C-alpha cells in the first residue's frame, strides 16, 4: 500500500517532465508515474498544485553546535521544509567546526531527531578551518559528510588545496571553495565601486574573488578533482567558470538568491541586513549571474542561509555580521521577483534547486521525479500570496520581512513521509 498523489501538475525540468500525471509513493521512493488504479492506496488529491522535486540547498549555516541562539538544526531544517527544501547541506563553520567524524555524526543525529528536512553535513577541508593541515576527510565521508569546504575562508595555500583536492577526489567527494583572496580583500566590507567609495566603506574589488576562482580552477585541472565554487558573485568569476566548463573541467558553481536579487546600491542605507560576503555587487554582475544561471554556467542556487541575531547585526556596518536568512522564502522570492517578471525561466529556477545541486553532490536519485527516485516532493500553490513573517528560523536578518511573495508549499514529502510537523498552528499543515 502506497500513497497515490493525484491531480497535480508534475514539474521536474531535470527529467523533462511537465504534465498532469498520477504518482505513487512506496517505501520512500517514487514507485510509479502514470495512470494508476487507486485501489489499495491512500489517495491524496493535489488538484491545482504543482508537484516538484524537493529542493536541495548546497549552502546553509545551521549554527549548531555553538551558536544555537542564531539557529539550531531543528529550526533550520524546519525553515528549510517550509521553503520546499527536503535536503540541506550545512556548512562546517560551527563552534567547534565540523572537522572530524564525531562532528559529522552529531549533525546527522540531530537532524534525524528533528525529523524535518534531511541534512548532509559538509566537513571542513582543514583542521579548525585554518588552511594548514587536512581534516579527516575519509573518516568524515564514512560518517556521511557530503562534501568538504572551509567555507568562510579560502584555503590560501595552493599546496594544501592541491593535496586536499587530490585526497577528496580519491574518496569520491567534491571540494567546495569559498573563493576570496584575503590578501586583496583585507578588511573590506563592501564591493569596490564608485558608490561604496563615496559612502566611505573599505572596499574590495571583484578580483579578490576572481583570482581565487582562477587558482582553484587551475588546481582542478592539475588534480582532476571535482571543484565546486561557492557563492559566485562577479562578472569575472562567471566568465572563468564558463571557460573551465568549455574545456571540460569538472567544475561546478553556485549563486545565492541575494546576488541574483540585490546590488550594492542597497548599501546607501548603511543597513547591515545587506552586509553579506561576498558583497553585493553592481547591476552588470547581477546581469551576468542571471545570464549564467539561464545558460547553465551556474549549476545551482544555494542560499548561504546565514542566521544572525539582532545582537550580531545591530553594530556599525564594518563590525556587523555578514549574511542573511533564506531557507523559508528563497523559492518564493526568486519566483516572485525573477520568474514572474520574465528574468529567468521557471525551468531553470527549479533545475538550479534540484538536479543542479544533486549533480554537484554526485547524487543521481535526488531532486528528480522519476520511477525509482527518492520520494522527496513538494506540492506548490504557485498563485498563493503570503507575507513574510512568523518565520521558523530563530533569526530575522532578511530584507524581505513584511514583503508579500507568491508561491507557497502546501504539502511536502521527505523520503516518502508526509512532512506534517504539527508545530505551525497557522494555515499550513506541516
Amino acid at each position, binding site marked *: 500500500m502506497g500513497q497515490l498523489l493525484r491531480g497535480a501538475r508534475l514539474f521536474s525540468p531535470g527529467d523533462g517532465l511537465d504534465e498532469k500525471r498520477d504518482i505513487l509513493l512506496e517505501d520512500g521512493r517514487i514507485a510509479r508515474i502514470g495512470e494508476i488504479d487507486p485501489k489499495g492506496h491512500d489517495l491524496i488529491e493535489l488538484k491545482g498544485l504543482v508537484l516538484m522535486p524537493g529542493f536541495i540547498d548546497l549552502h546553509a549555516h545551521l549554527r549548531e553546535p555553538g551558536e544555537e541562539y542564531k539557529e539550531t538544526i531543528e529550526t533550520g531544517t524546519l525553515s528549510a521544509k517550509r521553503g520546499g527544501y527536503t535536503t540541506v547541506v550545512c556548512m562546517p563553520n560551527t563552534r567547534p567546526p565540523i572537522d572530524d567524524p564525531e562532528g559529522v555524526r552529531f549533525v546527522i543525529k540531530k537532524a534525524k531527531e528533528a525529523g524535518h528536512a534531511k541534512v548532509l553535513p559538509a566537513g571542513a577541508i582543514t583542521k579548525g578551518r585554518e588552511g594548514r593541515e587536512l581534516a579527516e576527510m575519509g573518516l568524515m565521508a564514512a560518517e556521511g559528510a557530503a562534501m568538504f569546504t572551509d567555507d568562510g575562508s579560502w584555503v590560501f595555500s595552493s599546496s594544501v588545496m592541491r593535496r586536499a583536492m587530490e585526497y577528496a577526489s580519491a574518496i569520491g567527494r567534491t571540494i567546495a571553495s569559498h573563493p576570496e583572496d584575503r590578501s586583496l580583500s583585507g578588511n573590506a566590507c563592501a564591493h569596490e565601486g*564608485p558608490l561604496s567609495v*563615496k*559612502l*566611505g566603506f573599505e572596499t574590495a574589488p571583484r578580483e579578490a574573488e576572481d583570482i581565487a576562482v582562477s587558482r582553484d580552477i587551475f588546481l582542478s585541472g592539475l588534480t582532476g578533482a571535482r571543484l565546486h565554487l561557492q557563492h559566485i558573485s562577479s562578472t569575472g568569476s562567471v566568465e572563468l567558470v564558463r571557460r573551465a566548463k568549455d574545456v571540460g573541467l569538472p567544475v561546478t558553481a553556485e549563486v545565492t538568491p541575494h546576488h541574483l536579487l540585490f546590488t550594492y546600491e542597497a548599501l546607501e542605507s*548603511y543597513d547591515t541586513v545587506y552586509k553579506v560576503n561576498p558583497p553585493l555587487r553592481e547591476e552588470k554582475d547581477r546581469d551576468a549571474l542571471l545570464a549564467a544561471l539561464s545558460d547553465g554556467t551556474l549549476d545551482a542556487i544555494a542560499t548561504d542561509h546565514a542566521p544572525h541575531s539582532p545582537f550580531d547585526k545591530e553594530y*556599525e556596518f564594518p*563590525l556587523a555580521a555578514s549574511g542573511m536568512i533564506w531557507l523559508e522564502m528563497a523559492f518564493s522570492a526568486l519566483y516572485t521577483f525573477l520568474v514572474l517578471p520574465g528574468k529567468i525561466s521557471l525551468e531553470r529556477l527549479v533545475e538550479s534547486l534540484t538536479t543542479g545541486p544533486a549533480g554537484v553532490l554526485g547524487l543521481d536519485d535526488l531532486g528528480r521525479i522519476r520511477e525509482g527516485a527518492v520520494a522527496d516532493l513538494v506540492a506548490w500553490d504557485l498563485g498563493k500570496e503570503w507575507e513574510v513573517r512568523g518565520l521558523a528560523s530563530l533569526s530575522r536578518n532578511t530584507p524581505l520581512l513584511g514583503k508579500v511573495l507568491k508561491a507557497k508549499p502546501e504539502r511536502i514529502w521527505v523520503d516518502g513521509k508526509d512532512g506534517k510537523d504539527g508545530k505551525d498552528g497557522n494555515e499550513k499543515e506541516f
Partner: protein
Amino acid sequence: MPLMERLHSKDLIGLEGITREELELVFSTADTFREFLDRPIRKLPTLRGKTILNMFFEASTRTQASFDLAAKRLSADTVSVSKKGSSVEKGETLLDTLRNIDAMRIDAVVIRHSAPGAPLFLARNTEASVINAGDGLHEHPTQALLDMFTLRGEMGDFKAKRVLITGDILHSRVARSNIFGMKAWGAEVVLCGPKPLVPEEFRAMGAEVSWNLVEEIPKADVIMALRIQNERLSESYFPSIREYRRLFGITADKMALAKDGVVLMHPGPVNWEVELDPRVTEMVKTVILDQVTNGVAIRMAVFYLLMAGSKEEEDGAVA
C-alpha cells in the same frame, strides 16, 4: 539676524545632496556668529536649556574642543563621552548606545565614529539631532563647511574657482565632504596624489582626478593639502616619504608655479615636511588658523539651525 530658516533635516550627516541655498544659509548664519566671536562677551542665550552630547569614539582634540566651545557659546549644556574604539569593544551595540542617549533626554548628539554610517544609524533611530563629526572614511561635514566658509571669507564667492585637493583622498572624509559641498557651491574640484590614494572612483562624485601635481598647481585657485598618515606607507600606498614629498608634497619649488593670489588650506593637523613645506606658508596666503576660528562659528551655526526654537516653530518654518 536672518535666522528663522532651517535646514531640510533634523540632522547633519553629510554634505551629499546639500543645496547652494542651504550652504548660503549656514554661511550667513556663521557670519553673524563669527562677528560675535570678536566681541568681548562671547556668550549667547540661544540654546539655554538644551543639552548636547559629544560622543567621540575616535581620538580628536581640535574638533571636539571646537564643538564643545560652540555649544557653550550658545549656552547649551554639554556632556562629553570619549571612548577609544567602538561600542563593540565595550560589548555594547550601537543601538544600546542609542537607547542610552534617548534615556538621557539629549537634544543633540555630536558623534565621531570609525564606522561609516554610524551617525546615520543613530539619526534614524533617535529624536535628537545628530551631527556627524566624522564617520570613518565617509563624511566630516562641519570641517568642509568651515573650509568653504573660510574660502568665502578669503575670496568672496568662489563659484567656478578651481580647488585642488592633494594627498590621501581615499581615506579622507574631509575630501569627500568638500567634494560634495564645493560642487554644490559651483566650484571645480581636482584631486591629486598617488594613484592608490586617488582612485578613479572619485570621478563619479563629480571631481576631476589627476596623478601629476606639477601639472595641476598652475591651474589651481585654491590648494588644500591633506594629511598623510604614516600607516599608509606600511600599507604600500606609496614607496617612501621622500618620494611622496618630491612628487606630491606642497613644496616651495612647486608653489613657485602657482597663480598669484592662490590660497593654501590644510584641515590639520599638518605633517610638516611631508605634505607641506613650512617655507610655503611664507610664500602664499595661508588660512590654516582662520580655519580653526571659523570652525567655532560654523558649528554654532549648525547647532543653531538644527536646534533653536521649538518643534512647532520648526514645523512652521518648513511649511
